[in-house]
């Protein structure tokens, strides 16, 4: 279970690590927004080149990113298959009833796969190089305007950082409970959908009980360490926007301009 990479932070000292987490967050969103307009090999290639350049800049081994892709492999496969079989168009290469494989279908499936992979890689760059606390702080800072609407932004950010911290723990616990029940003859992978769904119930109950106990303990630990009000706290990880962040946005701007140029002038 330790190879689950979603939300995992790897400390380091790269240029990307040192950027303001808000820059990384907004940058990721801008990149994804721009990339969603890609519609040709050239635009996808340009986007991929950008992502791989970013990955190099994080100075982390590519294996970490590969591990980040693995958990969503089935989701990618599912989407590819949908695209492959249900895209209408000509020429048709293969047909069986309502299912047909067309040339546009194949191209679409590959596009969707690239899009998926690039989005995941880009998000992994964000989580890999940013401490969860910093992500929460950045979110709190970016959502500050909502405070005027009485949205409890500070509390939500703290909840998020605690939730991120407990994800690996709850995964571990799920695995333990599953193993304990498998060893007593429970099967999670045989039988029809109803039988399988019912097998989940005895898994969820101990998981919930355990999570509630953790929550109560955690509340005590937080109170004992002086926690009173999420809005009345100082911050260990301070956010500071510097000239490097401006350079990052300038880079993203150049990427976007060239993206548009490629989209309109290169016809592949």
């Amino acid at each position, binding site marked *: 279970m*330790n190879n689950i990479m979603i939300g995992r932070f790897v400390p380091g000292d790269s240029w990307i690590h040192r950027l303001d987490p808000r820059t990384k967050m907004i940058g990721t969103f801008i990149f994804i927004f721009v990339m969603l307009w890609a519609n040709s090999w050239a635009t996808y290639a340009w986007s991929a080149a950008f992502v791989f350049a970013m990955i190099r800049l994080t100075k982390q081994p590519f294996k970490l990113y590969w591990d980040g892709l693995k958990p969503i492999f089935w989701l990618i496969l599912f989407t590819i298959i949908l695209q492959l079989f249900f895209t209408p168009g000509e020429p048709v290469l293969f047909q069986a009833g309502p299912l047909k494989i067309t040339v546009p279908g194949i191209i679409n499936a590959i596009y969707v796969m690239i899009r998926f992979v690039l989005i995941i890689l880009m998000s992994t760059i964000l989580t890999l190089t940013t401490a969860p606390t910093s992500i929460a702080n950045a979110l709190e800072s970016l959502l500050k305007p909502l405070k005027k609407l009485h949205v409890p932004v500070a509390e939500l950010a703290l909840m998020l950082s605690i939730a991120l911290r407990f994800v690996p723990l709850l995964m571990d616990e799920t695995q333990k409970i599953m193993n304990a029940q498998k060893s007593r003859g429970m099967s999670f992978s045989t039988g029809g959908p109803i039988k399988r769904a019912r097998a989940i119930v005895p898994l969820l109950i101990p998981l919930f009980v355990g999570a509630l106990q*953790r929550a109560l303990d955690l509340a005590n630990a937080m109170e004992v*360490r*002086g926690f009173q009000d999420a809005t009345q706290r*100082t911050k260990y990880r301070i956010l500071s926007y510097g000239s490097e962040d401006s350079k990052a946005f300038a880079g993203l701007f150049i990427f976007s301009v060239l993206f548009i140029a490629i989209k309109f002038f290169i016809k592949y």
Partner: protein
Amino acid sequence: MVKAIEINNLKYSYDEQPLFNDFNLNIEAGQWVALVGHNGSGKSTLAKLILGLLVADEGQIIVFDEQLSIESVHRVRAKIGMVFQNPDNQFVGATVADDVAFGLENTKVDSSDMPQKIDAALTVVGMQDFKDREPHTLSGGQKQRVALASVLALQPKIIILDEATAMLDPDGRMTVMETLQQLKQQFGQNLTLITITHDMDEATLADRVVVINDGRKILDGTPAKVFSQRRVLHDNGLELPFANELAYQLDKKPEDYMDERELIQWLSTLNK
């Protein structure tokens, strides 16, 4: 004598089930007190009452001359640090440094002062090289030392450890106990330590051992005095520390002649 904690006529019940009835306890500043008792004897409840996590039905709890009340609870808590039993359920931060920072953030320490305070606290418990580590990459003993550092960073006058070693392997248990001994040496009279445990070997390290059962004080005195009361301890579901138990059992050696095999057999029954 300066009193760190003074508990007078404490009453507390969980849903009509009385636990403490007229309980009294004084703890001297600078002492190391081991609070022992079998499971369910009320140790954790007592700790939570002292910290104001539970509210007493009757009686007084006074911490360094300040009486615990709804109004004073945060000031009282600022004087006390607490380490709980489960290493995972008290790790608030995403990394070791963030966890130590959590308490500092709550008490509004300036951001610029934090790194130095975090380093200092982690150095005391020997965890300074693990600052950026995430909790699931640490052993139980390491997590408990981080919890101790988180508490130390807030400079409490009293530290309570509620079975902080109960979920650890022997190795982790040893490092935590060593850290505590070293802490006590470093801070001397400025730190009052209360270790709640049912491991009697840990209790021998304290200056004073208090045995409770069903919310009542059963024995109270130096480890030497308390562990001479084998019968009373047994009647309250507790055992002697290993060394004392061994000495006691060896003293009971059979009168009859034993050959080598019989002697080995007899010795092995001691180590139950």
